[in-house]
């Protein structure tokens, strides 16, 4: 029980880091523009498929595919943002939900058309496979690698947000969009860039997720629910909140499925509803 507890905590934390990568972009863009983007995981899925195609079709090494997964998701998201999303910034929640659910539906259909509905097979490089043992416990190498990448990205994000000029603009726009505009900050431009960055991170997360959760066209909806839970529990526009919420959700999901498999995801949904009833704006949200 105790030995397995450590393993569950480790796996849950690694899973949480994956959720964090997938959701942090949505949290920031939602906090800034209040735009409910349910197609966020479609961009993650795109990243995953780009990585799979480059690896299996062109024989690229795994690491080389990651930047392209990021870029593909980021660039395509900017196109969608400029063409479709920006027309609906002032529209109701409902219109935004409908538009982005529509995009997610289309992405699922296109993925199924090109790749079929089966899970994509991937072969990780040998140095990321297997496990190493430390302090009498064994750790999956890939999960350690995932945690490392996520922590690195978190550090970079926090540093960029706290210490750069661009970060200051983002914080200003999240805090008070109208005031930021009044001070001459180009909120639309900042938003487009943040949106691209967030979708890019989701794409990266999608590529990194394949080895742990697999990749099929249902990805855009399956993980959308996890991502939305992380975002709403963590609070909009808060990187720290997303980090804590993703860790919580990751560990509780893995623990729930390990110890009480008959309940499935029941526990996680219950935790989310109770948390939201207690704090509707999320754990770290202010609005």
């Amino acid at each position, binding site marked *: 029980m105790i030995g397995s507890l450590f393993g569950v905590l480790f796996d849950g934390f690694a899973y949480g880091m994956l959720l964090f990568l997938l959701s942090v972009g949505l949290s920031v863009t*939602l906090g800034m523009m*209040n735009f*409910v983007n349910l197609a966020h995981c479609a961009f993650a899925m795109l990243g995953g498929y780009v990585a799979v195609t480059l690896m299996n079709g062109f024989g690229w090494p795994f690491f080389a595919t990651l930047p392209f997964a990021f870029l593909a998701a980021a660039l395509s998201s900017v196109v969608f943002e400029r063409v*479709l999303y920006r*027309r*609906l910034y002032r*529209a109701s*929640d*409902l*219109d935004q*939900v*409908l*538009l982005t*659910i*529509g*995009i*997610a*539906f*289309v*992405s*699922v*259909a*296109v993925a*199924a*058309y090109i790749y079929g*509905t089966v899970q994509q097979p991937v072969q990780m490089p040998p140095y990321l496979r297997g496990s190493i043992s430390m302090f009498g416990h064994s750790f999956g190498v890939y999960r350690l690698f995932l945690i490392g990448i996520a922590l690195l990205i978190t550090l970079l994000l926090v540093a960029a947000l706290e210490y750069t000029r661009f970060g200051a603009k983002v914080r200003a726009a999240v805090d008070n969009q109208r005031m930021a505009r009044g001070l001459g900050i180009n909120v639309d431009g900042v938003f487009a860039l943040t949106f691209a960055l967030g979708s890019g991170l989701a794409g990266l997360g999608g590529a990194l997720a394949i080895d742990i959760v697999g990749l099929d*066209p249902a990805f855009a*909806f399956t993980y959308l*629910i996890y991502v*939305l*839970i992380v*975002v*709403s529990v963590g609070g*909009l526009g808060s990187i720290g909140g997303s980090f804590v919420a993703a860790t919580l959700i990751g560990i509780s999901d893995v623990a729930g499925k390990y110890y009480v498999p*008959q*309940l*499935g*995801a*029941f526990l996680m*949904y*219950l935790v*989310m*509803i109770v948390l*939201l*009833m207690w704090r*509707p*704006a999320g754990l770290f949200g202010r609005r």
Partner: protein
Amino acid sequence: MSVAALTPQTYLNDQARWTPVEIAFWAATLLPYWLFPDYLSLASQIAITALFALSLDLILGYAGIVSLGHAAFFGLGAYTAGLVSKHIWGEPITGLIAGALVAGIVGYAASFIIARFRHLALIMITLGMGLLLTELANSMHWLTGGNDGLQGVKMWPIFNTFRFDLFGRTAYGYSLIVLFLVFLVARRIINSPFGLSLRGIRENALRMPALGAPSRAHIRTIYTISAVMAGIAGALLAQTTETVSLEVLGFQRSADVLVILILGGAGRLYGGLVGAIVFMVARDQFSGNTPQFWYFWIGTLLILVVMFLPNGILGGLAKLTSRWRRA
């Protein structure tokens, strides 16, 4: 229009008058018996879906409460009606009432939560409740049959005379009559002062209390009514198909009904009805053996509707006719 005609009472009376188009619409619902006798099962499904969409219209179209988990109440009604028939008796009307009651009680309890939230938290809570119920039904295999579905639902003839037949003749008549009765109730609600204040809540939830209309109490009432109607729709599906699968609770059904309502036109009594007809007939014709393509078209349609037809098919038609009248 004179100034005196602008009192709320005359406005409501004016709205409540039956138009020839409405009467023609309901008369046309009888046509499948002669025109498409082979498609009566589909027609019955359409009537049930229309009823479900109507229930969502009351909270989403009129009160402005976005719900991504309305299938929860549909599923509750379906499972209740199915279980009543399996374990107690197969009498349809009491099964229908039982389904409505259970959905209504849960809806009333949930409405206290719903009325407190808006925006993303509301979307997430409705979504979460739907998922929660799905997981619950899945894990209570001994009661619901879990993934295998509820087997052994057998219905008695309605009033001991109308037997449920293979061609859906009774099923369609039964669904249609229930739909019409519930529609009358919904129509009465919408054309009452209460219905008018719901539209006020949709437009500005903070201002309504200032005008003396208790927003939260109104939201609780309409949410409960909507849950009852969704429960009736679910019970109808369970009774006419004599089976209940987990899919009645799923996210897919919540999303579909949202699409149907938006397609037809939210905030219009006939929006859900028209949407259900278009959606179900199109799905029957096009989905075939490749459901993925069906979702491609649904997705594209959603994008187009949001971008170019913000009030759905009926909104577009209304715009056209008003332009035509002015010209």
